[in-house]
């Protein structure tokens, strides 16, 4: 049994934090899915589906991976799922050899089509993050470390590009930006 519980999920809407008004939980042996519903100003209904599964490991279960699917995001469903699995691998929440759920089990738990999960797994395999063995299952494969390192750098570079663009539009200089980064990096 999964010995954990997702207590709550605070979301920020227009800069203000909101707690969920309702939540529905469903758990089975190795996964837990919770659906949180938020009412903003008694109006907007935002739904987040949080899905948590343990990666089966030789050393014993560890590494909880959470997948959040938002119903108000413009990003396609398969992209949301794929990005979060990739994220989990880059952050080493999922490591080499960890087993991912079967396509159908995953699709059922996330309430998406098997075709969507199939696409997620196919693309992740093409990009070298996972490997699937017919009849056995799908596993995380970080054997291509170069690729992994590149992806990590690319992720940060993307965020940096966004940050620089915002700074430039607000007329914040490179020096200011650097000193801001020095302060914030020490903070965590």
């Amino acid at each position, binding site marked *: 049994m999964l010995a954990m519980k997702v207590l709550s999920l605070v979301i920020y809407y227009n800069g203000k934090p909101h707690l969920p008004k309702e939540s529905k939980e469903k758990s089975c042996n190795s996964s837990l899915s919770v659906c949180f519903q938020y009412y903003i100003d008694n*109006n*907007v*209904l935002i739904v987040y589906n949080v899905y948590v599964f343990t990666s089966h490991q030789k050393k014993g279960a560890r590494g909880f991976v959470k997948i959040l699917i938002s*119903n*108000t995001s*413009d990003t*396609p*469903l*398969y992209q949301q799922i794929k990005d979060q699995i990739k994220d989990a691998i880059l952050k080493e929440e999922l490591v080499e050899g960890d087993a991912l759920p079967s396509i*159908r089990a995953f*699709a*059922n738990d996330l*309430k*998406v*089509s*098997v*075709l*969507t999960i199939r696409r997620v797994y196919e693309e992740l395999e093409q990009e070298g993050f996972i490997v699937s063995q017919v009849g056995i299952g799908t596993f995380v494969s970080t054997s291509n470390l170069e690729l992994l390192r590149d992806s990590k750098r690319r992720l940060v570079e993307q965020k940096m590009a966004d940050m620089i663009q915002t700074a430039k539009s607000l007329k914040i200089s490179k020096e200011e930006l650097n000193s801001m980064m020095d302060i914030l990096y020490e903070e965590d």
Partner: protein
Amino acid sequence: MNDILTVSGLNKSYGDFSLKDVTFSLPEGCITGFIGVNGAGKTTTLRTLLGLTNKLSGKIQFFGLDMDKNEREIKDRIGIVLDGGGFYEELSLDEMKVIISSAYTSWSEQDFKRYMDMFSLDPKQKINSLSKGMRMKYALALALSHNAELLIMDEPTSGLDPLVRGQLLKILTEYMENGGKGVFFSTHITSDLDKIADMLIMIDNGRIVFREEKDTLLDTYRIVKGDSGALTTDARKLFLSISETDFGFTGITKQISEVRSYIPNIMVERPTIEDIMLGNIGGER
């Protein structure tokens, strides 16, 4: 990935209703929902596919085999659940089973008993004593007891309460997990499909409107709510359908980015399959 069923150029006429050039395919390994309003042509399409009624023209292939040439072999591999069931009312469930099971080469008495138990059906009961829900369960028990690769069902959940509907959906999921290659069922109860469908095919007035992955549909369409005053003539063209009240409008669109550029203050939500179906019904502007 092979297609488990391909239909091309299917035409059929019934007096004042006809199927026009119906063309679609079902990918293997998927649960496909066939949606449309009453009278759109769902039952006619399914009956024609199964050879229960004649077609004017068109090609139908199951498992890569042509229906015109391999009807017997194909039917052996398909499990069907049709509205009403087509059973002999005076027979008992057991007697009816004897007739039906003899038509199939891979009948599994073990599976049949298991389903009869699961559904709490008494084999000695007469068919005319069954409620609607029990009838569907009986038909399902028969359909699942001859190692069918494909399940085809016509409105299996209409008239059933939510509990029974939930049970059916669970059985379909298990069927797919245990070697079933596909399920094709028609329905106008779209909330069932929200939960279980992988692919959706919509028919309206005898024509196929779309054949699309469920998640792609949910990613492409958006429900937009906003102020009626902000709806210019140009903005209206971006919607498939709009409903307006004194308090604002609700519309469904496939062009959400354009809508955002025309109307700044809007609330955007993902649609349900029902929204998508209603937005695609002819003449709904």
